[in-house]
């Protein structure tokens, strides 16, 4: 294999110039890059020297630098909003040493089917800021759908609004440090015992992620005393596939039961 060239930019301006070159990839923590084939890649841009490792709150908007690790996010979000969904999603993700390496930017760019992050970002309507060829802000869904946005572009920040929401995250795992078969992220806005807004995303389905629109419709504008947990389970109709799933039908049943339990817990507390 030919030698990779490593760049160590210290300013975003330098990074932008570098990312516009041919066959170059940004390097955050490297855990994702190690899983892929680097054939065709000439150089890597090491991000750790860039000012991308801070988390700021500007006018109720949280801005997370793309080089922040999962551990950084868990630690710093705890100061900003101790009950925030991102903490729930990330504090047990992977394992301790990996959480010190996996970066937000890398996770967004890669979006593996076991991602604990993406469900939260989708429910939060997060925006992804890019620099380089496709400089600008994009909604996270736009970024997921349009693979072309990745080309010659570097994620600099992930932004979302800080909103008072009830939130919960569930990971379907075999052991504590497992990559989840699927995971649910739920955000609820409850006003006067009524659910006025609701977001439910499941990551790990055949489509990689699925918005549980039927369950959302059922819950929206429903008073919490009228919620039938068993009913929610029936509205979950997820498709799972892959050699890691022995019993896709069971996975869907499990997903339904666990979602019902999450909702029950959330409206109770």
């Amino acid at each position, binding site marked *: 294999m030919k030698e990779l060239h490593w760049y160590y930019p210290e300013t975003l301006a330098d990074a932008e110039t570098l990312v516009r070159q041919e066959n170059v990839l940004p390097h955050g923590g490297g855990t994702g890059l190690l899983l892929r084939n680097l054939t065709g890649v000439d150089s890597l841009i090491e991000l750790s020297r860039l000012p991308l490792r801070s988390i700021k709150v500007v006018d109720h908007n949280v801005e997370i630098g793309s080089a922040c690790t999962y551990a950084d996010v868990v630690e710093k979000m705890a100061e900003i909003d101790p009950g925030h969904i991102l903490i729930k999603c990330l504090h047990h993700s992977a394992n301790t040493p990996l959480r010190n390496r996996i970066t937000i930017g890398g996770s967004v760019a890669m979006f593996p089917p076991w991602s604990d992050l993406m469900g939260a970002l989708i429910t939060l309507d997060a925006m992804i800021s890019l620099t380089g060829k496709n400089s600008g802000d994009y909604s996270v869904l736009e970024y997921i759908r349009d693979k072309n946005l990745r080309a010659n572009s570097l994620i600099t920040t992930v932004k979302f609004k800080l909103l008072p929401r009830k939130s919960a995250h569930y990971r379907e795992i075999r*052991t504590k440090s*497992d990559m989840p078969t699927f995971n649910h992220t739920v955000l609820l806005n409850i006003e006067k015992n009524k659910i006025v807004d609701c977001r439910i995303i499941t990551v790990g389905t055949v489509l990689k992620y699925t918005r549980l629109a039927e369950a959302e419709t059922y819950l929206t504008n429903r008073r919490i005393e009228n919620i039938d947990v068993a009913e929610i389970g029936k509205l979950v109709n997820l498709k799972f596939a892959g050699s890691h799933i*022995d019993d896709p039908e*069971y*996975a869907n*049943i499990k997903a339904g039961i666990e979602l019902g339990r999450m909702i029950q817990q959330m409206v109770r507390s």
Partner: protein
Amino acid sequence: MSDYTIIGKSEKKIDSLSLATGACQFTDDFELKEPLYLAQLYSPHAHAEILNIDDSEARKLPGVVDVFHYQNVKPVLHTTAGQGFPEPSPYDSVLFDMKMRFIGDRVAMVAAEDQKIANNALKLIKVEYKILEPLFDPEKAMDKNAPKLHGTDRFTPIGATYDSLKNLAAEVEIEFGDLKKGEAEADFIIDKIYHAHYGSHCAQEPHAAISYFDEMGRLVIVCTTQVPFHVRRIVSKVCEFPLSKIRVIKPRIGGGFGGKQEVLLEPLAALVTIKLKRPAKIVLSRKEVFQNSRTRHPVRTRLRTGVKNNGDITFLEMDSLLNSGAYGTHALTVLSNCGAKVLPLFNKIENMRFLGRSVYTNLPVGGAYRGYGATQGYFALNQQLDMIARKLDVDLPEFIKKNHIQVGETSKIFEALGEGKEGVVQYINSCKLDECIDIGAREIGWYEKREKKLTNGDKVKGVGMMVAMQGSGIPLVDMASAYMKMNDDGSFNLDIGATDIGTGSDTVLAQIAAEVLSIDLEKIIVLSSDTDRTPFDVGAYASSTTYVSGGAVKKCAEKIRDQILDVAAEIMKTDRNNLELADGKVHDQKNNKCISLSDVAVYSLYTKNQFQIQAGASQFVEQSPPPFIAQFAEVEVDKKTGKVDLIKFVSVVDCGQAINPKLAEGQIDGATVNGICYALTEEYKFSENGNLLTKQFRDYKIWTAADIPEIKTIVVESHEKTGPFGAKSVGEIGINGPMPAIANAIYDAVDVRLFKAPFTPARVYREMQKTGCQHY
């Protein structure tokens, strides 16, 4: 309870500080001068014949030095099982074969200047295969029209039953009493089929071997082995290189659990060094460990038991079908132990039959794995006992206490069934199983929780238990030896063939020597497992080290003690019978005088009638006294989803005198948690064409500290008169319990029998959905 000074004390493991500070070296840590790095090419087909290999492109790659395969390496039939000679496993392997028998079978090997080049060269080897029909179902292996894996040139050196035309790697059958009579007498018969699954040892250190010629032209092999002396013998045979020119050194080993009782890499490294006269290094990746090394044999057990309403078991018939995978390593002995280590525990049963068959399939290869058949057998037996007790409506612990073997008793199985051959008549000298059961029941809260179905929302609690015995070495087979000499300052070298693979046997054996000589542990300098420097030992397997090797060390130290007393008598001009060793000194009781051991050593080495105080001793055992264990599980089962949470697990073990209680507990803790993961999350999954899908830790899930519930290990000491200072074994027994104890606990919670593990949420859920499950 004892008046020992060092025995029974939790002395610090003698290598532990060196390990904790990273100073100790493991095989892959040794520096070699310009070694060749080796990489293996594996078969992508479960069953195929190699028609041709073209290695020319690989050889052209700069840095590639040589490529090895069936066309250029002489085939020498052997077994990779690191067992005593002649090995009880069939000779069905050669280093490089023309026939591929599983996805992962060895096709070729590259030796190159660096690892990357070696790995890249593999892709350049062109292999032409003729694909053959694969055989995956062990139940069909003996069918007339089943694909045959091995040719008729393969054989067993011990003359055991072997039939390659039936894919039969081994067969054992014993019967005593009258089964028909037992059936007639029974008020009810329970007839069930259990499946114990594949498992990987997951020793944290992957297999590795390095080899080089020393300055005298002798071949040195440093390797991750449990059996250095068997390595020397098998390498000599396979590489056709004189045994006298081979030295095998075992450095620190990162866990074995049976996985390193296999001679897999050593002949490959040796082959390269012998041919190319250069050092060689081979280290398996984790994927290779999962797929290409050895596994726990899956066993299908059909267990039939007849019971009278008064609780008498009138007959027992066990039919074990062992899936040996592509090769027959340990196929006979693991199979034998499915019965031999299990059935004697219930010695009141007068009519018994054990039929065992090991068959070949085109799947990964079984081998030695902690528990060694007993784990598979006890999974069946202990669930069956739970069913019997429930059907009789009696308390399971009390039922077991009435039926298990007791001190002074024997079992016909001991004599009829050994490890691959007939066994040895054996009477039980020590057994505190009743006490183990009582303590365990108390610790788990058996009588408060059993059949109570304590419920919290969707979750129901249940408790389950099991009992087991194992052995302590292989009687009339195992031999261990020790050598000691005394130094100027009253310290001693202890040279032992015994193989510490992380168990702490170096420490335990030093404690035995120190006890005999009444000295501090620091005075014993241990050197173990170097075939040039230490006397013979079969190695670390069959729960033998403390009992067998410990016996050798004790004998050896006693000879040293006698010599010390002789010299001291000469120095002190007194009768030897007045002398006694205590606190590192020789005391003359009568004259109230004492001299130091250093005085004795200096006198013997420099002063008068000079000689080296030294001794060697061997231990050959005729008995294999079983340790006993009672294990209890408390689970909480989610009725809606089938998810099983383990709340608490208790193990109470009678291992005779624990030489080092902390190390003994550590053996049980480790074995138990290994068994728990095996019961709940570990699984080999295959694609339809026989490809292993779970060959990484991210797929094959073993637990981390974050998953561990309350684990309680209690050692109940007994005194085994045939063992060193009353010791029996403790290494394997703990792994047998989790699978049946947890299965029984799940039944207690949700009335569902799990005949197949792991007990994943999906599997438990599906079983709960089935209607008409039998309620006992």
